[in-house]
């Protein structure tokens, strides 16, 4: 019998374990690859900006601190890692791994469009092989984590 205003006999646990659904895990990994791709682009930009520290034997600390692409890149990288860990907690590894290799495709797009690197058949073939390889590695049908 339900009596309004009186709480049920079983109290809610202090922290209910929250689980992401399949689709949510996939979305998380998808976002992870986007952040990961942008991080790579920013890394390339930052390394081109000379600021990786040593010039003529002198360490330029200020240049390191003001190297904004480096710090934004590291932030994106951190976010991407966090998203991946969250997704891997609840998602099926075999489903998520192939999505992870999307990063290679984003990086390829950005290299060509933003950094004006040439797109060659070799690169497309090589990256495709790597994507399939990474996908296959994940396909052990095991649940991720525990």
């Amino acid at each position, binding site marked *: 019998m339900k009596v309004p205003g009186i709480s049920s006999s079983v109290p809610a646990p202090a922290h209910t374990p929250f689980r992401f659904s399949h689709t949510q895990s996939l979305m998380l990994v998808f976002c992870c690859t986007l952040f990961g791709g942008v991080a790579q682009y920013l890394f390339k930009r930052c390394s081109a900006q000379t600021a990786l520290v040593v010039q003529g034997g002198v360490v330029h600390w200020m240049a390191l601190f003001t190297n904004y692409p480096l710090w934004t890149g590291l932030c994106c990288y951190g976010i991407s890692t966090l998203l991946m860990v969250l997704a891997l907690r609840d998602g099926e590894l075999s489903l998520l791994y192939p999505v992870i290799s999307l990063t290679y495709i984003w990086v390829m797009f950005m290299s060509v469009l933003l950094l004006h690197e040439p797109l060659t058949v*070799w690169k497309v073939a090589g990256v495709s092989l*790597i994507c399939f390889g990474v996908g296959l590695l994940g396909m052990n049908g095991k649940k991720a984590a525990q």
Partner: protein
Amino acid sequence: MKTPVESILLVLFASFIGSFGAVFLKWGAGRISRNPITLLLNWRLASGVALYLISTVFYLMALRKGELSLLFPMVSLGYVWTLLWSKLFFGEPFSRRKLGGLALIFAGLVVLNLGRS
């Protein structure tokens, strides 16, 4: 911009160091307890993170010269190392799928290098 050999070697070296980062993280993760202090005093975890950071420095040095579209996929050599160490240090079995995946990644790396000229 042609990608110089030293950039490629730096990326491969970074992936090698990074794969040891994973080994130390795994080693340390097995010893995590509920006490958060043990997390901070866990030198294995700390070494894992440090190795990752060092590998990032080498990776950034590699990126200074050369094409991102070539150098980034080469990081995937790390998968090959990691599988090797998993077998060696943790006794995780090789499956036919894993070997197939490794072979594909390796072939991809070779193809990328062939197209470099």
